[in-house]
């Protein structure tokens, strides 16, 4: 057990070291997009609008935090792993080492989780400054951490199964971008027709934004969404192991 934890940390260590060299640009670039959304949707389009009993700004901030956890965790894990696989080719060094495939997947997930957590908390702090009534409870933080971990695993999985930069960019445009806007981040899913609602509940970001919004606004917490999110995490982890076993010994 201790060896496994050490192995996971060793895999994480190199990404952490890398982040240490580039942490300023990594954090700043991950904040640009959510801050723009906050200004454009929170103040621009949503100024004066109310959703139920809360202002649109209070409604949208948890959605933008969910979105930040999604995009930063996913990209933080996927882009580093793709660089390791295709550009530096250093991923082979991991496969030749005695570290197990399980530890490799867990270790490679941690950098996305860390980067996602840092950026989400930074956006959350801005949100709390703008909207002090938001509740940042332990449940909110739990949902945020689970989201970052699951989205990071999603990034590792996609970086392992997509074998080219072109494929990755196609995936970003066809899956990631629509998820960004549609998964209940900027609007309530209650407004949508039933089939669209069902389709969006198949996507993990929907469950992250529902959980974070409920926790932040004091609504009844959707435990089922958190469980579904954890289920996605398990599925991505198994997917990573299957993808690695296909090629590696």
């Amino acid at each position, binding site marked *: 057990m201790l060896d496994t934890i050490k192995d996971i940390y*060793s895999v994480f*260590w190199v990404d952490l*070291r*890398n982040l240490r060299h580039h942490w300023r640009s990594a954090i700043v670039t991950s904040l640009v997009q959510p801050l723009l959304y906050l200004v454009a949707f929170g103040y621009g389009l949503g100024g004066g609008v109310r959703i139920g009993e809360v202002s649109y700004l209070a409604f949208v901030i948890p959605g933008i935090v969910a979105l930040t956890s999604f995009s930063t965790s996913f990209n933080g894990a996927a882009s580093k792993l793709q660089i*390791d696989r295709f550009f530096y*080719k250093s991923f082979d060094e991991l496969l030749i*080492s005695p570290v197990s495939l399980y530890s490799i997947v867990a270790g490679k997930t941690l950098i996305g989780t860390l980067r996602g957590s840092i950026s989400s908390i930074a956006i959350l702090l801005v949100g709390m400054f703008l909207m002090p009534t938001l509740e940042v409870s332990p449940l909110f933080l739990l949902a945020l951490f689970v989201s970052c971990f699951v989205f990071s695993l999603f990034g590792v999985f996609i970086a392992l199964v997509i074998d080219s930069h072109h494929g990755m960019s196609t995936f970003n445009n066809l899956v990631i971008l629509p998820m960004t806007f549609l998964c209940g981040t900027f609007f309530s899913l209650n407004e949508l027709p039933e089939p669209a609602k069902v389709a969006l509940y198949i996507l993990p970001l929907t469950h992250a934004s529902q959980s974070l919004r409920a926790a932040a606004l004091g609504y009844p917490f959707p435990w089922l969404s958190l469980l579904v999110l954890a289920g996605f995490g398990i599925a991505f982890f198994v997917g990573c192991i299957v993808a690695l076993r296909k090629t590696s*010994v």
Partner: protein
Amino acid sequence: MEEFIVAERLTKKYGNINAVDGLDLVVYSGEIFGFLGPNGAGKTTTIRMMTTLTKPTDGRVHINGFDVVHDACKVREVIGVVQQHISLDRDLTVRENMEYHARLRRLKPAERKKRISELLDYVGLSEYADRMVDALSGGMKKRAAIVCSLIHNPKVLFLDEPTVGLDAQGRRRLWDLVRRLNSDGTTIFLTTHYIEEAEALCRRVGIMHRGRLIALDTPLALRRKLGLIAVETIVGNRETHYQFFADRAEANRYVQSLPPDVGTVIIRESNLEDVFVVQTGEKVGGG
């Protein structure tokens, strides 16, 4: 000598293409073995199968008595691998890359520090240890990749095309390093498409062509089978004919028997390129 790497009917298929086709090979402990062949001959695929990176389609490989598929962990403990592309994290320093490899190999902190310092000294990179890998010359990057692969003191070092892209000086420094590693007890398995590299370094050479091993012996024995002396006859600046002879006296007799207007005649020692061309009808660098 002890058998260290044993491949039996080793095969890798990609679709209908046999990248490696029924390879039987033994590499002995303590030797420098060279795999010679053009690009696409199956050299890298063979190394990837031997180093647990690619699953064989058929056949087996044992390293130090362990099967590379079923006992991959045991195999990984005794092998070091230097890939054709520099597989280091180029945004980190040489020391950071070495520390990463040492951590992956589960070396304890004190052991890590000692080993990193010893190895940097061994390859003459001590003063560049804290430079980013990206800022190093091609030869230094290659040496940095080698020290990372040596961090756990492997019994065999696999070098895939170790001198591709290096200048003459960098190439010779690397050859010296390979010889030194071998004389210090490391078995070396290298692939190359440079004839002179195989001749300069390897005790035995296997020649690969389209996934098959077409010749296997010491460079001298391979040349001797063909003839140690080559006579090139260049007819009208268009065509070159090659003849091979056991010694110079025989070659001279042949040259004297040629008509006086035959064209340019060159007498030289044969080399492994001649062996390859005669066996396959193609040039080693011809792809």
